[in-house]
């Protein structure tokens, strides 16, 4: 059988490294019975994330890799992962995704034609800007920053005092260069691979919001597999995403060093400074806690608290 795996991120991303690991594992463990074809850059889905999700549901592609903000299009509960500063670090986030909350979220997808095989780390959103460095929340006042078009992000950043701009990703580089926007939020690997650091010279490590990456199988594809193959594919996905987490962690420091070498100044705000950000975002946090469901959010908060003890 030939398994087609799609992702919209570029070849150099650690997502694709995970996909290639998955390919290697499935092909070796099935002794060549299954072949995996990895399609990066969105070539299988016209570069369109919305369509990629639809194609997975329809069985037009076998496996996709998608971040949790995109999955919130299918089920709003996934927003819980994106709640500002809900996770203190990647380990806590991954523990929640591997635990009962992750299982609950995964189960919701199944009635929509998709099965979550494993979760990886999409890292925290950091702030890249041209004015800078952004040390305290006052420094960001009135600064135009591009955020993905998720209501939670937009409301958070306008509450923080900046001017959030929802702009097509394709135009961000030129807009940064010309000054139509002053910056944006992205995980470090994406700031690097999209080369925003060539035209935006300050990065503030605010750890604003986390995203998890799901390796997701189409139910149509899943039904095609024997029970043994299901076990094989599921295990390969888990192992591949464990590999991805390791790569992501080591990459983050490595990429920061590369960007610093090319003239980017990377700044980590103090705890007090971050508290200023968190205070401003508190009303939005409360609003979305209600929207997503207080029970679910509290469950995550409780698990995070238990982990830190």
């Amino acid at each position, binding site marked *: 059988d030939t398994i*087609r795996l799609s992702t919209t991120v*570029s*070849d*150099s991303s650690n997502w694709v490294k995970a996909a290639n690991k998955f390919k290697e594992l499935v092909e070796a463990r099935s002794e060549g019975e299954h072949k995996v*074809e990895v*399609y*990066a*850059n*969105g*070539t*299988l*889905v*016209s*570069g*369109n994330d*919305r*369509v*990629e999700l*639809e*194609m997975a549901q*329809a*069985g*037009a592609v076998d496996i996709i890799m998608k971040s949790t903000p995109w999955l919130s299009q299918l089920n709003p509960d996934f927003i819980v992962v994106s709640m500002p500063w809900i996770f203190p670090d990647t380990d806590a986030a991954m523990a929640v995704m591997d635990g009962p909350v992750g299982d609950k979220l995964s189960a919701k997808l199944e009635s929509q034609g998709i099965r979550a095989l494993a979760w990886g780390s999409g890292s925290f959103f950091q702030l890249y800007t041209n004015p800078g460095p952004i040390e305290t929340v006052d420094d960001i006042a009135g600064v135009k920053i591009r955020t993905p078009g998720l209501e939670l992000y937009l409301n958070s950043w306008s509450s923080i005092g900046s001017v959030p701009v929802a*702009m*097509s990703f*394709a*135009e961000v*580089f*030129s*807009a940064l*260069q*010309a*000054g*139509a*926007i002053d910056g944006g939020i992205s995980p470090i690997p994406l700031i690097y*691979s*999209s*080369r925003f650091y*060539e*035209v935006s010279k300050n990065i503030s490590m605010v750890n604003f919001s986390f995203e998890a990456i799901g390796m997701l199988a189409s139910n*149509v594809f899943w039904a095609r597999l024997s029970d043994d193959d299901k076990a094989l594919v599921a295990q390969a996905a888990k192992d591949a995403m464990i590999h991805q987490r390791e790569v992501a962690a080591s990459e983050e420091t490595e990429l920061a060093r590369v960007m610093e070498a090319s003239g980017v100044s990377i700044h980590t705000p103090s705890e007090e400074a971050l508290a200023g950000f968190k205070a401003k975002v508190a009303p939005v946090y409360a609003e979305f806690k209600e929207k997503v469901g207080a029970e679910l959010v509290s469950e995550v908060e409780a698990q995070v608290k238990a982990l830190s003890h």
Partner: protein
Amino acid sequence: MELLTNPAVIGLMVFFGFLALNVPVFVAIGLAGLMAFVVFEIAPLSVIPYVFSGSLDSFPLLATPLFIIAGNFITRTGIATKLVRLAELVLGPVPGGLALTVLVTGAVLGSMSGSNIATVAALSFLVQPMVERGYDRGFAVAVVAAGCTFGVVIPPSIGFIIYGVITESSIPKLFAAGIGPGLTMLLILGGYVLYVSKKRGYKGADLENRSWSTFFEAFKDAFWGLMAPVIILGGIYSGVFTATEAAAVAVVYLFVIDRLVYKQISFAQLPDVIFESGRTIGVIVLIIATSAVYGWVMQTQGLATMLNSFILDTSGGNAIVILLFFNLVLLVAGAFLEPIAAMYLLVPLFKPTLEAIGFDLVHFGAVLTVNLSMAHLTPPVGVGLFLASQLGKVPFATAARYAIPFVLCEVVVILLVTYVKPIAMFLPSLLG
């Protein structure tokens, strides 16, 4: 041979078969793709509408219908006539003056927009004045289509940004590498236009006497029209709006100027203008979407991989031959695919080889961009040429015939950019 039984290659033959029987271009590509899905069972049938949806749900594409509307406004307000008069006063008796104006304007507009077809939309209002001056309509349309190919070569350009991301090369350096090739294109195409105009007797303007006073009068007359590109370029470079947003600003600006100064377009006529451009863009998007479907077939059937290994086997590692082959593959792929789709398909395959032969990736970015930019001009799937023929009201086949010499000129440019390194690399080398 394995290559000949590849569904993508068979699809190509089917495509040409349909084309020969006068089947509309989008149906010919679409059915060739569909054939691969049905006969070779390469994927579920539901893939095609999703590819349609994905390839058209794209922000940069939005600029095209807006520039078509803007071009329509320029003509209807009479600004077109005023601009043409001014250009003719400046150029005077230079043969092919208007055609040269199209090329230069294309380069200027191209410098702001990253989109070739948006540039065609903005330039096509010049077809009618050219016809009135005695140019063949097919030639006028071909000039407009050729004028658009500067669009992605001269920075800024989404093509370079995407290439930079795929190959992990510096985008500012790539932008710098586009300037030399862009000017080379302008020079060579301009030379050809001059030559043809002399031969065919496309005369310059000798309608009125050229004096400073007439020039100033014409300048004053065309002032509000001239302000359109000034506002657009100024707005983009100062960061007030982005390239796509500029198209909407242009439409609103022209409409407001007409309300205040020229009063040629009534509110009642507005729907007709918009409807007309909606239909034109409709014709174009079906070609874009179906060529994306064919790209899907090429991608999944490993055609590019096959060609790549064929090149490596036959070239014997000779860098000059490899580059020649790469250009050939780009040319062929560009004839059927949208440039961006072709880039995603081919660049990851070429990259290891380029690194092995030590060819600078920034330099190759310039080569590739010139080559794929030309794809908008090359039949049978030259989207820029198709749009120009629609807007210039010429059968596509006629436009294609007049476009061929321009394609040959651009092939010369590609070879120059490939083998004469300083054309592309002088400016980036200054960036260190």
